[in-house]
């Protein structure tokens, strides 16, 4: 636990020293949603109908960016090998890194999302719900994504491959996230979707680190 805290502090320090890297996903998210809104006919009805889906797709693509660099620098500078020799079990290492990365890159995205929701003229309840679904969803995406990041570590055309590997795995989160927001938007209820999203999030936070740890061991051979 102590060791995890040390690692967590280091990861946070790295994010704070180079905020630009961590925030690039947020910039991407903001840019992408704005372009989306611009490309659609600015009719409120249409914007409201497309908003939840568009916001969620942009968040998903942004979290793909978040995940891409998760282990890359550690792998390049030899830190990963030292982490393998650390008494901290590898799944815990993965979980700590993913959590720190989520805090650094995805949480800002979650925080700005209500503002972007305004662009799509989302209703008040949908605006309130959006950051919650995104928080749960991006957490799941980052943890599931850590598997893909570990699998593609050090490979040619890694980022292309990463999206091919991860997009199928991301679909359930996307569907329930967007549905919950849309449900709040048109008043048809969102509790069921939100609980499923929470379940997906818990499952991936719990199980994904073990899978990623196995993939990381493989990448370090």
């Amino acid at each position, binding site marked *: 636990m102590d060791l995890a805290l040390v690692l967590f502090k280091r990861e946070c320090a790295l994010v704070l020293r180079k905020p630009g890297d961590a925030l690039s996903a947020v910039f991407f998210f903001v840019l992408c949603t704005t372009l989306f809104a611009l490309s659609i006919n600015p009719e409120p009805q249409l914007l409201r109908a497309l908003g939840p889906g568009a916001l969620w797709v942009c968040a998903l693509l942004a979290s793909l960016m978040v995940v891409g660099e998760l282990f890359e620098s550690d792998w390049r500078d*030899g830190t990963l*090998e030292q982490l*393998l020799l650390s008494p901290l*079990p590898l799944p815990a290492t993965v979980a700590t890194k993913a959590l720190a990365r989520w805090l650094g890159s995805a949480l800002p995205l979650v925080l700005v999302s209500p503002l972007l929701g305004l662009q799509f003229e989302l209703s008040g309840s949908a605006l309130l719900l959006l950051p919650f679904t995104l928080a749960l969803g991006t957490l799941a995406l980052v943890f599931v994504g850590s598997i893909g990041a570990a699998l593609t570590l050090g490979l040619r055309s890694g980022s292309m491959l990463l999206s091919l590997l991860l997009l199928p795995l991301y679909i359930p989160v996307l569907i329930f996230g967007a549905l919950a927001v849309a449900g709040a938007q048109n008043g048809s209820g969102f509790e069921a979707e939100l609980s499923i999203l929470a379940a997906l999030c818990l499952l991936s936070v719990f199980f994904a680190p073990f899978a990623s740890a196995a993939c990381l061991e493989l990448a370090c*051979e």
Partner: protein
Amino acid sequence: MFETLDLGCCKGRRTLFSGLGFSLAAGEVLHLSGSNGCGKTSLLRQIAGFAPLQSGQLRWQGQTVDARSLSWRARLAWCTHQPALKDELSVGENIRTSLRLAGVEADDEAIQAALAQWQVAAQWPLAARLLSQGQRRRLALATLSLLSRPLWLLDEPFNALDDAACRQLWQAIHQHAAAGGRVLFTHHAAVAGVRVLALEDFA
């Protein structure tokens, strides 16, 4: 006693070495020699448990060990040309974190003293990205002595080191051995006064 029995390594269709075995008593230093691509690094990586053993086994004090277990890895200090430094952090932060992640609680004075031996103590507050290649190597090697792990695995440790640093490394290796540690290092050239294991003998 640390022993390896019948280790082997195949890369694709080529057998790099097979039937390789040696033993290393406490206080012993072993030089793995061989030309480029003969499997020195592969052997070290197998012993460190990064790559799986393709055959044979490792034994520590007579007991077979699982090279992928945490308990085995807790005995190893590993040093390659990658110094595992984070550019964004200062030298002090880097060393402190890597020691703590390795499970070592060292106070700043002890770290400073070790760095002074390697003539990088003055760099303590600097960001790691400002260091030269040689200074990075020195930092990585200085960390080794602080780790207090019984088996050192060093992959080409003399590369990119100047004469003074080479002498310092020898001193560190002998100190570690004198304290009952074991050192296993690879080097392409011959080294005087150290037991040698030529990988070509097992090709």
